[in-house]
């Protein structure tokens, strides 16, 4: 009983972890299924078919490729633009600050339907044909706020004395930025970009408004497939992305861990 009380947080924590990961587990397990009919909802028998023939279903791999491409470009662009804004906000006091902050907050407070549909209206009015470009524009737009918020926190917590120390040690403005400020803010930028990538890779609602049949992203593909029965290969992609993210981050951790241990 005392044991239970002492470890209550751990137990709840693990249960919540299970809740968070259960769907991924299902996705992984069913990627090895050989479904009876055309719907992959009931376990039948183990098979590697989907894994050996990932791109066998027409259109899916193209959609994954497109999503990765859009995710990368959108998160990088948003990271660059967002970092600039974050620096302006974190470092300078200027007229229009509060308006700027409001403008950054609003997209986060706007339901996706509203954003997607209003953007489509704009594209139509401007005569921009929907497709990859419009999806990118939309993604950069909704990723921006998240990047700004993440990076700004980092910029704000940056000790201004470090930059003064750099200036004191003969670094001019540019050198100070390159050698001190940027490396220190980089983890924040990376976190913001990562968040942006996952948001972009995951978005369905806004994308759906601003896509064309020749620019089907992975979530759109999944949505369409869901209406007619998802192929097992979708689970394979889900599994690969999930484990891929894990592997990348964990190796990154291990590497930096090893580096600092070697130093010690």
């Amino acid at each position, binding site marked *: 009983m005392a044991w239970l009380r002492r470890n209550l947080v751990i137990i709840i924590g693990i249960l919540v972890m299970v809740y968070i990961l259960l769907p991924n587990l299902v996705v992984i397990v069913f990627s090895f299924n050989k479904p009876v009919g055309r719907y992959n909802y009931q376990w039948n028998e183990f098979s590697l078919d989907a894994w050996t023939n990932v791109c066998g279903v027409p259109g899916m791999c193209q959609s994954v490729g497109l999503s990765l491409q859009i995710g990368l470009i959108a998160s990088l662009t948003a990271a660059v633009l967002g970092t600039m804004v974050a620096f*302006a906000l974190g470092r300078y*006091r200027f007229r229009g600050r*509060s308006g700027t902050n409001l403008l950054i907050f609003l997209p986060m407070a706007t339901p996706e339907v509203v954003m997607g549909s209003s953007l489509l209206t704009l594209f139509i009015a401007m005569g921009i044909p929907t497709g990859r470009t419009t999806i990118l524009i939309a993604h950069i737009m909704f990723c921006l706020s998240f990047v700004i918020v993440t990076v700004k926190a980092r910029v704000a917590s940056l000790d*201004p004395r470090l930059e003064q120390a750099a200036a004191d040690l003969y670094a001019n403005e540019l050198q100070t930025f390159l050698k001190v400020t940027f490396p220190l803010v980089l983890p924040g930028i990376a976190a913001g970009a990562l968040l942006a990538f996952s948001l972009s890779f995951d978005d*369905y609602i806004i994308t759906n408004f601003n896509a064309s049949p020749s620019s089907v992203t992975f979530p759109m593909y*999944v949505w369409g497939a869901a209406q007619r029965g998802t192929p097992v290969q979708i689970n394979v992609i889900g599994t690969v992305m999930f484990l891929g993210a894990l592997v990348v981050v964990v190796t990154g951790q291990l590497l930096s861990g090893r580096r600092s241990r070697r130093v010690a």
Partner: protein
Amino acid sequence: MAVSTLTGAPVTAPRRARRRGAAVPYLLLIPGMLWLVVFFVLPMISLGSQSLQTGDVDNGYTMTWNFATYVDALSTYWPQMLRSLVYAGVATLATLALGYPLAWFIAHRSGKYKNFLLVLVIAPFFTSFLIRTLAWQTILGDQGLLAEVALRTHTSWLLSGFKEALKTVGLINNDQLLFSPFAVICGLTYNFLPFMVLPLYSNLERLDHRLVEAAGDLYASPFQAFRRVIWPLSLPGVVAGTLLTFIPATGDYINSVLLGSTRTVMIGQVIDAQFLRVLDYPTAAALSFILMLVIVALVVTYVRRAGTEELV
């Protein structure tokens, strides 16, 4: 507006900026802000004007400042609006109840697995959330994983008891878990849990453990230490987490579409349908605006009440 106080800039830097060229911040701002103005504000304005127009798709719209659309939309769809707020609210509370212990666990009790657990919380983001939400169909379905596990472990009675309880509180309406308010809230909770855990984690991680010790030293029992010290200090994280959860949850409709029924329709679904099925753009635009206004109003009151001016 609460956001206007998102400052925290060091004192000396702005000073220098003023002297060395007031243009710098603006140059930094312009690209990003221009993007937001062109691709967010402009569309919003055209949406706003759309909501006041009359006409139909095939014959075109004219601006008539027809505010009646707002009245009509609200009087027709207030139940869905209300339902969205309630579902999102319940889901937010659920994410808080689940996310808080998890965040605490990761921040203070996970030792060397801390980073790994954090990654595990974020990693699901990389699997399309549609796939994951669909997986909930597999889990909650009548012949789904849950039922299967209950059957295999001879705990079907437990599952039935659980369903009975849900039925009593009206979260399911027959013996199905899926396609019910329960399933929708479960999906919303699941989907937005990381948005709660991350800000909470970064707040709780910074919590000075000595303050908890000081509370114990001053006769506070563990519960009192939580109630009087940990909780109030984590409020900024709680506020950030609840906002990041509540706002998108209110507008979400994927969960309702995939896991709900005609009795769980949320306002996002209505807006989507008005835009993409009915083609009643004024109604759709009006509903969008109402939704935004409601959210902003709630957020502002909430942030004021919670007493933290910091948003995220």
